[in-house]
């Protein structure tokens, strides 16, 4: 019986550990915060073992290729004032509710990211930019001169169905993937094209399918995605 009580108490402690999330990060400790704070939710190194169940238990998206993925200026601003990038949460299914005329997301349950001050944000961004994919992202893969954003919009919204999972404007598009309406500020073009070409290179079990897009489609969709969130789009 004592064993049962200890088990119950342990379960409670584990639950509390899951429930308590930091609300702010101390600027002075930023040098080690990337490892101590961010690593509690995000993979900062490529996981040795990738499984479907890892996607169900991880608490935040992988950051082990953050330096290839993000623009530093966006990181610095976002870390100080985080917004919801994944409308369905880290794993959309956990927040999905059956309904009519369709399933919905329990937005109140979607995880919130803690905010940090400006000094910490800059330090964290500097460290995140050092995390590279190890060759998955090719510098110069996106050719702006050959990208036709208007054709890209047609492919994104109609022909290739990207909009089924991603929002191209607030409230326009699906909920299981990250929103892309500020992708032009958030993401690096060479990462967008590499991920779109083969998402399973980054995680063999991620729920974005490989769409076997042609090179012209990859270029034009990337051109469109990179135009989102920019004033001169």
């Amino acid at each position, binding site marked *: 019986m004592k064993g*049962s009580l200890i088990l119950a108490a342990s379960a409670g402690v584990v639950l509390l550990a899951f429930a308590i999330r930091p609300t702010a990060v101390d600027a002075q400790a930023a040098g080690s915060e990337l490892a101590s704070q961010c690593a509690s939710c995000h993979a900062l190194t490529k996981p040795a073992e990738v499984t479907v169940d890892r*996607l169900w238990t991880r608490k935040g998206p992988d950051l082990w290729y953050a330096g290839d993925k993000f623009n530093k200026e966006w990181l610095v601003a976002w870390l100080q004032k985080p917004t919801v990038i994944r409308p*369905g949460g880290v794993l959309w*299914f*956990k927040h999905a509710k059956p309904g009519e005329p369709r399933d919905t997301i329990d937005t109140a349950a979607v995880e919130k990211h803690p905010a940090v001050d400006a000094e910490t944000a800059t330090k964290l961004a500097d460290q995140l930019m050092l995390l590279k994919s190890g060759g998955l992202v090719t510098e110069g893969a996106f050719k702006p001169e050959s990208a036709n954003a208007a054709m890209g919009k047609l492919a994104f919204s109609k*022909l290739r169905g990207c909009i*089924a999972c991603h929002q191209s404007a607030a409230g326009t598009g699906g909920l*299981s993937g990250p929103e892309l309406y500020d992708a032009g500020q958030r993401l690096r073009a060479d990462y967008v094209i590499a991920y779109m070409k083969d998402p399973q290179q980054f995680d063999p079990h991620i729920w974005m399918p*490989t769409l076997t897009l042609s090179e012209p489609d990859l270029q034009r969709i990337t051109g469109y995605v990179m135009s989102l969130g920019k004033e001169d789009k």
Partner: protein
Amino acid sequence: MIRFGIAMLGLVAMTGAIAVHQPATAGSDNPRIAASAHLYDTYCAQCHGVQRNGKGVNTVGLSVQPRDHSDTAGMSSLPRDQMIKAISEGGGAVNKSALMPSWSAVLSKEQIEDMADYLIYVCKCDTAQ
């Protein structure tokens, strides 16, 4: 008994914190059905719905609505090899919507075959007249 109850409550709460939804495997002890249900939740339910009724969270802007896998009559007309082809190669390969992507880069051949069996289980097509 009370202590045992407290212990069980803790375990249930732990499990609940990780898995919000129960897989749609009611009435089956088959581990392959359970495994396919978990894969369905991960990959298919985003469009085909958490209740397998074609009403997933991503259907808001789709020009073609996803198939209702709980529809016994509608699914009964779909041969198993066509299901496998659609999952493997995408909707376009079976003259359906190209919005249904190919899953062969994510799911193994065996997982796709098990998924076809799971769909037959979900639509109750194996017990239909």
